[in-house]
């Protein structure tokens, strides 16, 4: 089997944060959802994209007998602002506009995209995409109906309408707070990133869906120095948030987490090496759940027999207290989507129910293969990319134990608070991750902080080896994480409670 190596959660300037899972959003009086406030038809108003134009392009995309086709229009505005040691050292804007045209024949894809929003350019792209098939033309729907969908990320106002002068004080405050928290801090990078992505999906089976997907985060990254030794750490908070989410409390939390995590490393010792119990802390360590387990449950890897889980539907893959869900409906989290990138409404998919593998994550192509409905996991980085089954917010639900019970069950092991760079073989689920924050566990108690070590294992085996789950579920609250697959990065969320894995390989020092 060919190895698929990958960097996890690349492009992150700082580690993701984790706080308790939020209840569904209750909007304050006077708020409205932009999706509800604006009449649908943004792309027609701004770029003249009419139904008749879409019909023509879809007809061309199906001119050689494709099974179905879709159009994905996108208009994304990205802004970023960053400070280094109190000075604005980077401010950047990017506007991305284009349309992707996809023709599908069985499980094969013909794809074209263009940044020229003219009928001629779209027809050219469609005619190339059409050649994935070689038969008589297929008919597209005669008319389109707007998809009814909920809004999981309501906004009070567009981030693009918030002036830079309003964003800058937040960043300056994060910078100042980091320096104020410790005299050991010698350098601070702080910044604010926001993106406003508008999409329109039009499908040959007559669905039309428009969405406005915000994404933003505030971050701080610090370097601390003590006795000539330097340590670095960072933190960020964000998601699909309204600008009012970012308050002084957010700034304070980011600064405290970044500074505390850098300074604690001066006390860190190297972990022992070998097989031992590993306790994964709540929240951000669910990156392992995402990388080493979640990817194996994406339907394309199973359809192509690349995943360990390809023959496991209906079978036990974990202890009965383990339930794993991929949820696109969690308000304001990074992986939430009102609609996926091929026109299926955002939804919640139970992957492992009380230890039994019940579902994969499907896009339309894999759903057709398995003769099920798409689970709304068809996602893409942009109009320049075709759809793949991708995770949204992947979570493991809480268990019955307390975090204290879980740690007390370990005589000698390690407690992992956060992981960074990692590598996964998606097929087999073999992984290695660098532990950036953690502690020793000795005789059932958390002791010295640890650093400079890796944890290695196999995702499906790790899932089988989970022997305890605590009742302290936390959701990753970061906004900077993007998962890479097949050359595409999409924002994903993840969360879990404190979790005991009875045995894992720790790459520390031999004692």
């Amino acid at each position, binding site marked *: 089997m060919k190895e698929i190596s990958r960097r996890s959660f690349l492009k992150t300037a700082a580690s993701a944060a984790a706080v308790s899972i939020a209840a569904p959003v209750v909007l304050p009086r006077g708020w409205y959802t932009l999706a509800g406030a604006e009449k649908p038809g943004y792309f027609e108003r701004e770029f003249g994209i009419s139904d008749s134009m879409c019909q023509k392009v879809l007809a061309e995309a199906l001119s050689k007998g494709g099974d179905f086709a879709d159009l994905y229009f996108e*208009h994304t505005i990205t802004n970023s602002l960053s400070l280094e040691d109190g000075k*604005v050292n980077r401010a950047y804007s990017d506007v991305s*506009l284009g349309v992707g045209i996809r023709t599908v024949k069985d499980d094969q894809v*013909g*794809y074209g995209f263009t940044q020229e929003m003219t009928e001629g350019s779209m027809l050219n792209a469609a005619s190339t995409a059409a050649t994935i098939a070689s038969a008589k033309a297929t008919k597209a729907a005669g008319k389109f109906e707007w998809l009814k969908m909920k809004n999981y990320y309501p906004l009070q106002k567009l981030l693009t309408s918030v002036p830079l002068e309003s964003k800058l004080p937040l960043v300056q405050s994060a910078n100042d707070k980091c320096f104020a928290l410790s005299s050991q801090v010698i350098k601070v990078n702080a910044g604010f990133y926001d993106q406003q992505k508008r999409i329109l999906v039009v499908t040959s089976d007559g669905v039309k869906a428009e969405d406005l997907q915000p994404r933003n985060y505030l971050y701080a990254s610090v370097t601390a120095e003590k006795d000539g030794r330097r340590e670095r750490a960072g933190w960020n908070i964000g998601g699909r948030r309204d600008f009012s989410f970012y308050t002084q409390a957010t700034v304070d939390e980011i600064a405290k987490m970044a500074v505390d995590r850098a300074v604690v490393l001066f006390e860190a010792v190297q972990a022992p090496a070998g097989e031992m119990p590993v306790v994964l802390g709540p929240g951000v360590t669910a990156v392992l759940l995402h990388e080493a387990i979640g990817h194996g449950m994406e339907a394309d890897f199973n359809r192509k027999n690349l995943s360990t889980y390809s023959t496991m539907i209906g079978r036990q893959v974990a202890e009965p207290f383990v339930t794993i869900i991929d949820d696109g409906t969690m308000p304001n989290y990074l992986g939430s989507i009102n609609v996926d990138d091929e026109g299926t409404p955002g939804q919640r998919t139970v992957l492992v129910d009380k230890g039994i593998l019940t579902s994969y994550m499907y896009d339309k192509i894999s759903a057709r293969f398995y003769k099920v409905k798409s689970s709304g996991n068809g996602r893409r980085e942009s109009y320049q990319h075709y759809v793949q089954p991708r995770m949204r917010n992947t979570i493991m639900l809480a268990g019955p134990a307390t975090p204290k019970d879980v740690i007390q069950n370990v005589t000698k092991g390690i407690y992992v608070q956060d992981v960074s760079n990692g590598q996964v073989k998606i097929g087999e689920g073999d992984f290695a991750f660098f532990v950036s924050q953690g502690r020793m566990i000795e005789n059932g108690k958390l002791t010295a902080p640890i650093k400079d070590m890796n944890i290695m294992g196999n995702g499906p085996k790790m899932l089988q080896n989970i022997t305890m789950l605590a009742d302290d579920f936390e959701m990753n609250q970061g906004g900077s994480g993007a998962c890479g697959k097949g050359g595409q990065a999409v924002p994903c969320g993840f969360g879990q409670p404190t979790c005991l894995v009875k045995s894992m390989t720790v790459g520390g020092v031999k004692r």
Partner: protein
Amino acid sequence: MNKEMYDLTAWTVKTAKSAGADECRAGVGSERFVNISYRDHKPENIKEATTKQLGLEVFVNGRYSVQTTSDLRRDALKDFITNAIATTKLLAEDPFRTLPDPKYYEGRAKVDLGVLDPGYKKLTPEDRHDLVSMTVMMNCC
């Protein structure tokens, strides 16, 4: 040079200067990309891309920034340029960064090196499929 693209860059430079830029440099690039891949003797992925983007570098009060856009509507570009200049004004000063002295690029040769093979333009999607099919045939038993 494509006249439409040349006119757009010239207009962008003029608009940026009248909006407050001391100096600026604009470039429009257009690119076409085609990829066809087969699996088990059948086409699995076909991808064609046409890109057209504008990059803008602005120098304002000793400050410098770079911004990009593929929304080339003139009205949208005006907003984009205004925003680019406002953004640049927030940046820390970088007095050593300027456009190069024109003496360094005066008198450059305008010779077409002929690196563009016009044959690519004539390739149809079907020609490309034939090429890939032949490669598959030659590498399989």
